[in-house]
């Protein structure tokens, strides 16, 4: 029983991948049956299952004079993704966005050294200037 169920699930997954790969063009349902090697009875059952689960949508169309359905992947209701980034004050410091951050070390004669970094010193000079302006 268990393996039968997983076969079904595999089939559904495969069907979804195919429908997804068609993107906004969608796919005629008979094309999908053919690609999956299903007859129309099995095929329409599969489509109905996916439809019920809300994974696909159907659109009635006419193909070669016959009424049929075109299948599309259901647009998932825009998941409000929680992008939990909290960057804060770091964005002000040049190191945070510096391409050389990983290669930068103090001492040891490394080429990128925070103590002698021109970018960092320029930033610091700028901050000093700002502060002087304010205090004047």
């Amino acid at each position: 029983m268990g393996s039968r169920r997983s076969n079904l699930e595999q089939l559904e997954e495969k069907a979804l991948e195919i429908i997804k790969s068609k993107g906004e063009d969608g796919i005629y349902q008979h094309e999908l049956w053919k690609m999956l090697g299903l007859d129309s009875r099995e095929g329409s059952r599969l489509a109905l299952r996916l439809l019920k689960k809300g994974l696909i949508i159907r659109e009635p169309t006419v193909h070669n004079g016959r009424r049929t359905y075109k299948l599309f992947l259901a647009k998932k209701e825009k998941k409000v993704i929680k992008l939990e980034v909290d960057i804060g004050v770091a964005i002000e410091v040049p190191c945070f966005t510096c391409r050389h951050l990983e290669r930068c070390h103090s001492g040891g004669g490394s080429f990128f050294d925070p103590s002698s970094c021109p970018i960092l010193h320029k930033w610091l000079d700028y901050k000093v200037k700002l502060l002087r302006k304010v205090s004047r």
Partner: protein
Amino acid sequence: MSKDSSSRDIERLFILVERLIGEDARKVFEVMYEEGDEIAEHEIIERSGLKGGSVRRALNILAEKGFVTYRKVKHPDKGRIIFYWRINYEGLPSVIKARRIATLERLKALLETESETQYYICPLDGTRYTFEEALDHEFACPRCGSMLVPDEDRELRLQILRQYVRMLEADIRGDGAGGS
């Protein structure tokens, strides 16, 4: 109540991507952010209006830096490989945290050298010399001969550095408490 990132922090994230990798990467990343879930490579190319090569290059660097992840799927009828890309929502906080810690370390290193050294400055061109260098030149600028003067901004520089170190440390402590 879980707090969502403010739009200001999203903008900061975009700025980080742009400065770290480039403008194309920012565009690609924005397209992916708008999509929310995974998105096919050709879809990114279409929506960003960039060339395929630029998009792929940007995606690869984004992935290498841990900003995005991908899933490879064989195209069901054509047999070629399709890439579905997605922002690495799970990994992003630790990527940011690591950069923040690294930034703090660099600032601390600079603070240490700055507070250990007394600089002398040429009043004409602003070049800085350490005490030893200034002594070697008998406190005269080796280029123009003007007398070098002690760096009068020293205290301000130290103040600014200490302030940023404190702020970064506070943010990093907040990471530990706020992360779920």
